């Protein structure tokens, strides 16, 4: 499809370690359209951050081993692209926002210099021009007194400001795709709201496609157009944002949504999913969710279901979904 900015087919990542192999990502497919924000939702250890790094080709090998059948960014085939050429694409055509800005920024370099670097690398600008652009970029993400803030070190900025710097960094070259890995998790709620607002504006204004990686359903509700729900290395459900909140099909998604307490909620007890996420080295046979699933029966214990549904619409990986995907298709 011409409108697809990111196309990932069958991405797999494994971490061999002394006790066996951690199967972190087990063949995920993603399609992100132009200007769209797709969210990859899951709990810790489900492989969502690893997928993001794998798409950026930033995973260190060793310790990771990574295979993918198809990885296209717009009209660029990145599937077998060598490292050297990948360097020209990162930062320019695809960029990443990391979770913890305190550790994601070099502590001994002024934030201005860290943004300058990206202009100096990807465009033929002089140092002075680069700094000018840096200041403009910082102003765009609503950093007050951008000119002087550019000369401060990361530790001199507040958490919210640091996260804005990361956003400015990612949008510097107006890439085709932004991958935001838990962009607001480390922040306080009021600051979180500010930063999400900035991120959303930047994405909409520049019409940049985004892959949002998060465990926080409320962030998804606020940002995403499409949602991929991941569980133990596999995508278990795919849907448009509204649909997934209104009518989740997978029992896991359903349980997750129900278990999150809401302001507009009736009182206790909370709906709960029993047990915990399986250890990535000891995943159960069959459907990975079956030990925690209220609907599981024999086939669930034996066979992993497929992600089924229309090519571009809702899909669910379950033997007993709450409803069949084609039934709910609007």
């Amino acid at each position, binding site marked *: 499809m011409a409108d697809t900015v990111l196309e990932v087919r069958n991405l797999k990542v494994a971490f061999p370690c002394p006790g066996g192999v951690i199967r972190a990502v087990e063949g995920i497919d993603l399609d992100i359209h132009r200007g769209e924000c797709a969210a990859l939702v899951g709990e810790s250890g489900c492989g969502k951050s690893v997928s993001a790094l794998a798409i950026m080709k930033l995973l260190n090998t060793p310790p990771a081993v990574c295979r993918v059948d198809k990885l296209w960014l717009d009209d660029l085939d990145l599937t077998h692209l060598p490292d050297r050429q990948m360097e020209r694409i990162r930062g320019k055509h695809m960029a990443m926002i990391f979770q913890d800005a305190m550790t994601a920024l070099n502590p001994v370099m002024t934030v201005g210099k860290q943004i300058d670097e990206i202009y100096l690398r990807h465009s033929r600008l002089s140092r002075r021009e680069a700094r000018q652009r840096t200041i403009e970029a910082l102003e765009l993400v609503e950093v007050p007194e951008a000119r002087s803030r550019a000369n401060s070190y990361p530790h001199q900025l507040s*958490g919210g400001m640091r996260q804005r710097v990361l956003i400015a960094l990612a949008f510097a070259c107006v890439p085709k795709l932004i991958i935001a890995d838990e962009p607001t998790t480390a922040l306080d709620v009021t600051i979180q709201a500010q930063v999400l607002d900035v991120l959303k504006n930047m994405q909409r204004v520049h019409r940049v496609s985004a892959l949002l990686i998060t*465990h926080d359903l409320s962030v998804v509700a606020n940002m995403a157009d499409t949602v991929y729900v991941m569980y133990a290395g596999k995508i278990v459900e795919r849907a448009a944002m509204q649909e997934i909140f209104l009518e989740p099909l997978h029992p896991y998604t359903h349980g997750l949504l129900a278990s999150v307490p809401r302001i507009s*909620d009736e009182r206790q007890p909370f709906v709960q*999913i029993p047990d915990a996420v399986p250890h990535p080295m000891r995943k159960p046979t069959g459907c990975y969710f079956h030990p925690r699933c209220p609907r599981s029966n024999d086939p669930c214990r034996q066979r992993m279901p497929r992600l089924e549904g229309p090519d571009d619409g809702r899909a669910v990986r379950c033997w007993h979904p709450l409803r069949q995907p084609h039934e709910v298709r609007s």
Partner: protein
Amino acid sequence: MTRNSPDPQPLLEMENVSVDFPVKGPYPFSKKCWIQAVTDVSLEVSEGETFGIVGESGCGKTTLANAMIGMVRPTAGTVRFQGVDLYALNPKAFKEARREMQMIFQDPFSSLNPRFSVYEIIREPLYIRGQASETVMKGKVLELLKLVGLDEEDMYRYPSDFSGGQRQRIGIARSIILNPRFLVCDEPVSALDVSVHAQILNLLMDIQKSRHLTYVFVSHNLAVVKNICQNMVVMYLGMIMESGSSDAIFANPLHPYTKALLSAVLDIDVTKPRDRILLKGDTPSPIDPPAGCRFWQRCPSAMKGCRTVPAKLVEVEPDHQVACHLISGFSAQQVADSLHEPVSPKSGG
């Protein structure tokens, strides 16, 4: 809900409690500064209720919780537990009084000694008190393991064998083995996976019911607090901004900070659009908090007087107090004073 009318004597009572921490540099010649973690907080927790403390990081909520159970000595003010001034007790009586109060920690990974088996961890409080025989302790630990949903076999495992949720269960078992009446839960679920939150919260509430416990629940998640707490305080930079019954506060939030906090909680109700109040700027440092109302720099409706006149908690309706000049207004004297005082040219944000 267990009761509506306040007890004649609250279980825990704090009066004008302040906690300051000295910050010392690494060398003997460096200056000392003070962090004003909690300033002038008064509150009452009645028997059997769940009392919420809400605020963002650095607002002093954990320090306040620690001051309640005698882990941090307040610089000023009194803490009365069952009517007894906790910090006026002699060491022995203090130790005995604390038997009734326990704590559940935020991070289940650092709150269990990795060298201890689950049995050793859970029985530790009994062991320290030294009043029970090994068989008694074993029986007690078994009973608690069952209560928190773990197996008998888990007794001889080590914390590293458990997931975050299971570890938190172990922590809960340890905290109730002495049969306390008062339990402080310091963000008990924020370090856990989303799908485990509900399990732990339900477990806590079951235990509360079966053992008639009083909870102080510290959290940054308003939705959780709304659902489990009867009374609550909203804290900002070490001071209480709004307090009262959670029904009253959620039905009618009055303080601009509470409103902003509420609107910033991104509810997953996607059908109705909500207008969100975005606060400007960042939380100031507790080392040098702003004069006047602590919130004025970020307040969307700050007035001139807010910069100099501290706001006091006033009762606006039964079970609902707010510390905001928008509600209480300024007295004539305060207005007169603020006219003489030069307003600092620095604006907020």
